[in-house]
C-alpha cells in the first residue's frame, strides 16, 4: 500500500500571487475547499487504497496544503525543497520537522539552488523527469541525481501556466506517462517522446483543467473534474478513473497531485 502525505486546507487561501492562476480578487470559498479536499482524501483512501498521513495545517501558510512541494522522498531520504518565492519559504521548516519526526534522513540541497520537490521531479521507471525554469533551478537536477543515484532528465517548462512539472506531466506506470506537449520546449518534448514508451496527451481544455495534476496508483487515477477526454484516454488504456471537483485549489494553481506527496 503506497503512502502519501496530505495537509487539510484549514488555512488555505489565495493570499499572494506567485503564478498566473492566483488572483487575490478571486476569493476561495473555504467551505467548498474543505469539501473538495475531503472528497479527494476519501477517493485516495477508499478508491486508490493509499495510506494517508496528515500534516497539521499552520496559520499564515496557505499553500501548505500543496504537500507535493514539500520535497522529494526516496527510500528513507527526504530532499527538502528550497522554495523560489519568499512567500512559501515559511513552509520549509514545517515540512522538515515532520520528516525528521518520522525518521527520514534529511538531505538538503545547497540553499542557493531552487528546488520545489515533487512539484518538479517525478519518477517514471528508473528515471526521474525534472522540470525547471519557473520554479526549480536546473542545477538542482545534478545534485538530485548524485544524491539518489538515479538519472535525471531535465525538461524546460515554457508556459508559466504550467509552472511545475506536475501540472503538465503525470507518470502513469514504469513506461507510461501523460503530458501536455505545449508546456515543454521542443527539446523537452523529444526527451519525453524518446524516453517514455507510451504517452497520453490530454487536449488543451483538459490540460488547462489540470488533467495532468492527477494522482495515479496501480492503474487507478483520480483526476480533476471536467477532463472528460483525458478520462476516456486513460480508460482506454485500462485505467479506472475518478473525477473530482477541485475548483477552489485550481484558483491557487494546484489540483489533485499538488495536494499529495508520495512517501514511498
Amino acid at each position, binding site marked *: 500500500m503506497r503512502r502519501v502525505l496530505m495537509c487539510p486546507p484549514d488555512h488555505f487561501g489565495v493570499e499572494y500571487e506567485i503564478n498566473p492562476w492566483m488572483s487575490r480578487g478571486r476569493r476561495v470559498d473555504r467551505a467548498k475547499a474543505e469539501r473538495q479536499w475531503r472528497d479527494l482524501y476519501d477517493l485516495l483512501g477508499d478508491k486508490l487504497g493509499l495510506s494517508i498521513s496528515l500534516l497539521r495545517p499552520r496559520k499564515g501558510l496557505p499553500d501548505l496544503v500543496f504537500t507535493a512541494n514539500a520535497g522529494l522522498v526516496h527510500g528513507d531520504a527526504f530532499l527538502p525543497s528550497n522554495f523560489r518565492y519568499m512567500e512559501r519559504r515559511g513552509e520549509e521548516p514545517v515540512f522538515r520537522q515532520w520528516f525528521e519526526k518520522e525518521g527520514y534522513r534529511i538531505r538538503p540541497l545547497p540553499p542557493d539552488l531552487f528546488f520545489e520537490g515533487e512539484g518538479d521531479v517525478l519518477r517514471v521507471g528508473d*528515471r526521474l523527469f525534472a522540470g*525547471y*525554469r519557473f520554479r526549480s*533551478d*536546473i*542545477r538542482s*537536477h*545534478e545534485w538530485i*541525481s*548524485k544524491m539518489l*543515484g*538515479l*538519472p*535525471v*532528465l*531535465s*525538461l*524546460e517548462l515554457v508556459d508559466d501556466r504550467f509552472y511545475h512539472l506536475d501540472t503538465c506531466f503525470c507518470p502513469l506506470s514504469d513506461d507510461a506517462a501523460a503530458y501536455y506537449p505545449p508546456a515543454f*520546449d521542443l*527539446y*523537452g518534448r*523529444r*526527451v519525453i517522446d524518446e*524516453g517514455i514508451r507510451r504517452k497520453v496527451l490530454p487536449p488543451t481544455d483538459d490540460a488547462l483543467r489540470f488533467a495532468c495534476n492527477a494522482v495515479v496508483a496501480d492503474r487507478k487515477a483520480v483526476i480533476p473534474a471536467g477532463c472528460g477526454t483525458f478520462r476516456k484516454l486513460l480508460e482506454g488504456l485500462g485505467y479506472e478513473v475518478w473525477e473530482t471537483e477541485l475548483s477552489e485549489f485550481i484558483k491557487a494553481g494546484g489540483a489533485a497531485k499538488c495536494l499529495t506527496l508520495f512517501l514511498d
Partner: protein
Amino acid sequence: MGTYSRVIELRGHIIDSLTFPKVLDEILDHGADYETEEISIGRTRRDASRARIRVTAPSEEVLDRVLAHVRRLGAEAIEEGDAAVLPAPADGVFPEGFYATTNLPTRVRIEGRWLDVEDLCMDSAIRVRGGSDRPRCVKMYEVRAGDPIVVGYEGVRVEPQRKAPLERGLFEFMSSTASPEKSKERIIRDIAGEMRETKRSGAGKILWVLGPAVVHTGARESFCRILDAGYVDVVFAGNGLAAHDIEASLYGTSLGVSITGGKPVPRGHEHHLRAINAVRAAGGIGRAVEAGLLKDGIMYRLERKGIPYVLSGSVRDDGPLPEVITDSVKAQARMRELFRGVSMAVMVATMLHSIAAGNLLPAAVRTVCVDISTEMVTKLADRGTHQSLGLVTDAEPFLRELAARLRE
C-alpha cells in the same frame, strides 16, 4: 583574430536531456560560436556526463547574453585560473609552449587579478616578473634566462579592438580597403582631419614611416611643410631616405636626378655617395647640421626640432650614414621604445619599413598606408593591423594634398 570568450561547464544527464545540444543551439542562435574543449559521457545511462565548452562571441554584449541564457540551462562559466608561467631556459629563448602574442589588447590573470599586458606587439611572449613590473610583451632576443614567461592559453584573454568614438568614422568606414578608385581627395581630407583631431585632443603621437620615394617623387617639400606644421612626432626610415634627402639638400638631386628639373645631371649618380661621405666625414647627421653643412630638408628639421627618428639599416645600404642602426635587433628595440604613445601611423612608399613597423605596432594604432602598389597596401592591411586605411597613390600627390589640407 581575437574575440571575447569564456569557458562554460555543463554537468548532469545532459545528453539524454538534450541539454547539451540545446546549449550549443542557444550559443549559435545568439550569434556566438562554440568549441567543445572536453566532454566525458557517462558510461551507463545512470552516469552523468560533463562538457566544457568554449564560447566565443564577437562582442562582450553578445557573450554576456549567451552566458545569461546558457546559465538558465545549467551551464556555468568557469572561473579561469591564473596564467601558467615558466622560466626562460636561456637568454633569447622562450620556454616550450610559450604564449605567442597578437597585437590586440591582452590581459593575463596573475594571482587572481587580470592585468593589462604592456608594450603590445605581435609574435612576442608575455613576461611577468611581478612586483611593480607590469606584464609586458618581450621579443625573443629580449628575454633573459630565468625570466618568467606565460605558457599555454589559460589565464590569457585577448580582446578585439574596441572602437572609441575617435576611432570611428574614417577608419571604420575605410577599414582595410586599398582601392585605387576611391576619391583620394576626400580620403586625404579625412586623414588630415584625423591628424588634426589627434593633435588637438592630445590622443597621442603621429608616427611617419618613410621610404626614399618621398624624396625621389619630389614630395620632400610637402613633407617638410607637414613637419613644420607639427604633425610629425616620430619618424622611421632607412639609410635611403636620409641619404637622398641629404643629397637633395647638398646637390638638389635625388639619385642624381634634378628635383626641380626632373632630368639626370652629369655624374649625378655619384651625388648620394658624396652626400653620405660628407656626412660621415662630419661625424653624423647631427654633426652635419651643427656644422652648417646640412641646412635644409627632412633630416635637418628632425635634428633641429629634436624629433626622434630611427634609421634602420639593410644589406644594400651605401655608407651607411652614421645614424643608421645596422644591428636589426637593436633597430627593432629602438623602434619599440619609440612606439610608446603613438596613436596614429602614416606609412608612405616603403614596403620594408612599413611591414616592419606594422608587425611591431599594437592593433589600436590607426594606420594609414600609402603606396603606389596595390599589393603592398593590401599586404599591410592583411597583417592584422586592424585600423588600417590603405591608399594606392604616388607619394608626391598624397603628401602635397595632405600638406595643403593640414594648412586649412
